[in-house]
């Protein structure tokens, strides 16, 4: 199965990864090969098969609704690219 340049450009936006024009050609080939490999799945008869999410079919546990975390804002923000007054700095979002 092949994947078009348009598909690659669209999925790159969805994945928030900037892709240059020359990279698109290489990706067309590589992703096309990977999707060819994956296409073997279509031959499998899975009509009455339940999808499997956890090998032991375990489900998410619930915990009591109590506070278990302490405030570590300074430790967490010490490793951030840009902060000010306890806030994370990002480029302007609203004009």
């Amino acid at each position, binding site marked *: 199965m092949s*994947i078009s340049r348009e*598909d*690659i450009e*669209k*999925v*790159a*936006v*969805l*994945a*928030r*990864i*900037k*892709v240059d024009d020359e990279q698109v050609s290489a*990706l067309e080939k*590589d*992703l096309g*090969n*990977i*999707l*060819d*490999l*994956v*296409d*073997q*799945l*279509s031959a*499998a008869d*899975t009509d009455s*098969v*339940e*999808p*499997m*999410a*956890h*090998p*032991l079919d*375990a489900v*998410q*546990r619930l*915990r009591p609704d109590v506070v278990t975390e302490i405030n*570590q804002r300074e*430790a*967490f923000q*010490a*490793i*951030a*690219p*840009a902060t000010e007054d306890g806030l*994370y700095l*990002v*480029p*302007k*979002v609203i004009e």
Partner: protein
Amino acid sequence: MHNKSVAELSKELESGKISSLELTQQFLDRLKREDGKYNSFITISDEQALAEAESADEMRAAGKATVWTGVPFAHKDIFCTNGVRTSCGSKMLENFVPPYDATVTEKFKAAGAVCLGKTNMDEFAMGSSNESSFFGAVTNPWGLSNGEKRVPGGSSGGSAAAVAARLVPAATGTDTGGSIRQPAALCGITGLKPTYGRVSRYGMIAFASSLDQGGPMARSAEDAALMMNVMAGFDPKDSTCIDRDVPDYTATLNEPLKGLKIGLPKEYFSEQLSPAMEEQVRNAVREYEKLGATVKEVSLPNAKLAIAAYYVIAPAEASANLSRFDGVRYGYRCADPKDLMDMYTRTRAEGFGNEVKRRILVGSYALSAGYFDAYYLKAQKVRRLIQQDFINAFKEVDVLMSPVTPSPAFIQGEKTTDPVSMYLEDVFTIAINLAGIPAMSVPAGFVDGLPVGLQIIGDYFSEARLLNAAHQFQQVTDWHQREPQ
């Protein structure tokens, strides 16, 4: 000292012949002297290691020592270590110093073990050769004497190379599609991928959450058992961890193997396997027969679909997991972003390497509107078929045995231009992750002077049995004691 096992080092420390501080200094000196040849470490954390050694000596003086107290080892650079850089082999986390410990890290600390540093790995654990690391490829200690630079396998290639080169007696690894077993096989060491949910994934940087599992990499099954005694167990911080008693994995190592029923999956002795590799694996199985085991052929008819299912499920989960790297809270951020979208897209384009980007794009495609049922849902259904094959096989036999890889360690650069040829490296290991069952790689011979791994696959939570089978094999063979020149 560098040639001693974990069990032996523990005895030396216990007898008082050497302090942990002295032992740690010796290992650090040797590591710094030797690792230039292998590049198996990303970070050597001498300061923390010496501090941990001092605490270990105090712990011993206070009569609180465990088997691990004062014993040096290393963590794959995917386990978060409070105050020590954790890069996951990526530029994205080149300067990331976690403010917390992974549960596995915490457990080794509590046992008094001394972490010498963080081992090299494929970027975000995506790879089978350790060539996708931002910190450079790792060189396999085997083959170097012929002037050949071979891959150590991946993604836990740094851990495998470091243990094989006797830089550390043991190291942690993680296995999503073969990342403990394949490098263990190519480097001639012993590795175990536990049952999914046996070892906590908290603080282990996520690649594919329904497949990832941490486990031990060591020179013998006995040392791997000692690591499992530390690593295994329920953790309320990991919502997919299983709450189930943990046995003492060393207690059953010496059980006799008489009557053990071994199955050989015929699909794993296919034309992909080189005849020389097959001979070594069959010789190993004959050793088991001498130990009283019986052997029969079994079939895993859906195993051939494992790689296809994996390359939907793993990239899909990776694309979701790696969406957290946005340049806002931690990790890399591109210079001078002109707006928010520019910051996201350039941060991720510059911070991730090519293989990681390929997998994120494949995963995003498989999960995008209109494709979800055809890809992700279909792959999850095939996953159940693959699991059912194993469940059926274990109605007939106790363990399965197979090769770990189709061929021995290949030359660096041989497979980097064709991602799909690299993916096929995991043809015998990947189905095990999809089923969630445990499996080991055990040194079982050589082809052209390069190590061959025997894979021993077990039913859910049968780690003790696998370690027992591997240990008994290691009592009658010496493949695991061979050293690269």
